[in-house]
């Protein structure tokens, strides 16, 4: 009940002329400022990977729709050109309510329509605040979180069923404790792991080596709440010392791709969004993101504070070469497009002209989407 997401409201009006996001629209600048609907299959996939969050306003509209921002198109271009420009390793940053989680959702939607495999960690805090079981992996300093990996495999199987049903395993997997038929589909492989948490981690490793084999589609990995995995977790080891987040196998897996240590042979993208509402403060993460922005803009380089004791070396190493996409406010045109969609859906009962758009935009701290929504849709007068 807490996580229940309602995506449709029959009291809202059907918006005529709402185009659905499709493959040829990804990275196309002409759609900036327009709201695109999501196809049924895309919505199913996004729901299966838990991309929709309960506190977002999906339950107000007839169908889910996303605004195409300038940053959405930028990410779309990066998704289209991963072969020439390399696999993008992006961190989405921005103030609270700027639209980072929704940008992740748009990216996942674009990956779905392009026929990619999507792996999502909807809430990174579930991995580090000691609410799931953990077991040490023998002979390694790592820990595996079997229950979480089992649910992750179930989500992957459900969301990517159209692709994974058609692919069969092509390699031998000696690490998997149970016997595998030589011609099972990858979605069946995931389901085997989902059903039995004891073997979930070996099956995840087997699945990953299968989808990174040659000839497989590109992969999008997304994570929401980056700071949680860049610090110490709430778990303790046998000597009662806190376990660093990077000592968990599934987090180590994500971070090794985010940092560039491992690369996706068939291409794809690695995206991570920070959480600016209640994530742990990490001086290393802030510094790394600032340095990344400066590297991109070519500005002054912020040095490390020599007197600061709370830096985290592992977090610094992980974020040394990521790209940062800082989300600010919407432009007035984007805000207008969004508010027109709201008015057409019947949830915004105002005339959408230059004055009202400017008013809502200014009140929202120069266009922070979350604040525009709060001011326009959620104010109860």
């Amino acid at each position: 009940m807490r996580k229940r997401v309602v995506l449709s409201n029959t009291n809202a009006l059907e918006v005529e002329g709402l185009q659905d996001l499709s493959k040829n629209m990804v990275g196309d600048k002409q759609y900036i400022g327009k709201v695109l609907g999501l196809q049924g299959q895309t919505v199913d996939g996004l729901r299966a990977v838990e991309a929709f969050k309960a506190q977002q306003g999906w339950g107000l509209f007839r169908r889910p729709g996303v605004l195409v921002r300038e940053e959405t198109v930028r990410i779309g271009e990066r998704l289209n050109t991963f072969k020439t420009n390399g696999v993008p390793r992006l961190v989405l940053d921005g103030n609270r309510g700027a639209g980072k989680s929704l940008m992740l959702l748009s990216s996942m939607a674009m990956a779905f329509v392009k026929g990619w495999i999507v792996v999502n960690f909807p809430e990174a805090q579930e991995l580090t605040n000691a609410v799931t079981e953990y077991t040490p992996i023998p002979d390694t300093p790592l820990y595996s979180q079997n229950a979480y990996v089992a649910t992750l495999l179930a989500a992957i199987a459900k969301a990517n069923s159209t692709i994974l049903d058609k692919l069969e395993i092509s390699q031998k997997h000696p690490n998997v404790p149970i016997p595998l038929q030589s011609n099972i589909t990858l979605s069946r492989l995931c389901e085997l792991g989902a059903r039995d948490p004891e073997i979930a981690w070996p099956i995840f490793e087997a699945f990953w080596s299968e989808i990174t084999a040659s000839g497989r589609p590109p992969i999008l990995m997304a994570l929401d709440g980056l700071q949680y995995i860049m610090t110490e977790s709430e778990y303790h080891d046998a000597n009662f010392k806190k376990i660093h987040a990077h000592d968990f196998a599934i987090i180590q897996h994500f971070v090794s791709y985010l940092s560039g240590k491992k690369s996706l042979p068939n291409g794809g993208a690695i995206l991570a969004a920070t959480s600016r509402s209640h994530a742990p403060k990490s001086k290393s993460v802030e510094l790394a993101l600032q340095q990344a922005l400066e590297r991109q803009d070519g500005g002054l380089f912020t040095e490390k504070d020599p007197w600061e004791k709370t830096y985290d070396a592992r977090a610094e190493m992980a974020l040394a070469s990521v790209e940062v996409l800082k989300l600010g406010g919407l432009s007035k045109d984007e805000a207008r497009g969004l508010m027109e969609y709201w008015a057409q859906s019947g949830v915004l009962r105002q005339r959408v002209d230059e004055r009202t758009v400017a008013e809502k935009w200014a009140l929202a701290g120069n266009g922070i989407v979350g604040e525009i929504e709060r001011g326009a849709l959620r104010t109860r007068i």
Partner: protein
Amino acid sequence: MSTALLNTKSSSLRHNGVPFPENRLIKKSLETFYGIGAHQSSRILAKFNIFPGARLGSVPSKTIAAISADLSQMTIENDLRKQVRDNIKRLRDMGSYRGRRHAMGLPVRGQRTRSQIATARKLNRADWKA
């Protein structure tokens, strides 16, 4: 050895002979023992790689048996009570100031006695039982 836990028939965790229900949190069950609070229970769980929200039914009985064995090695329950009682007895028998305060039921740690001595009157005893 604490007699509250030794149970050779099954490997369930028991307090005063009564087993805990399976859906109870392990952390909470451990804290019902005299001498185990938030810190010690966290340490015990960490030693066996159990997360704090785990229920008794989710952990294999082998681990429960190991926890019981671990608990029987610690001074808890009656062993701990005896220890505290002996400490107070020692203070009294050697005629120390603290021993006399325990015997009179007055504050031991240098607090004011003009008022605010209700807790001392209630708790400080020479024949301390629990």
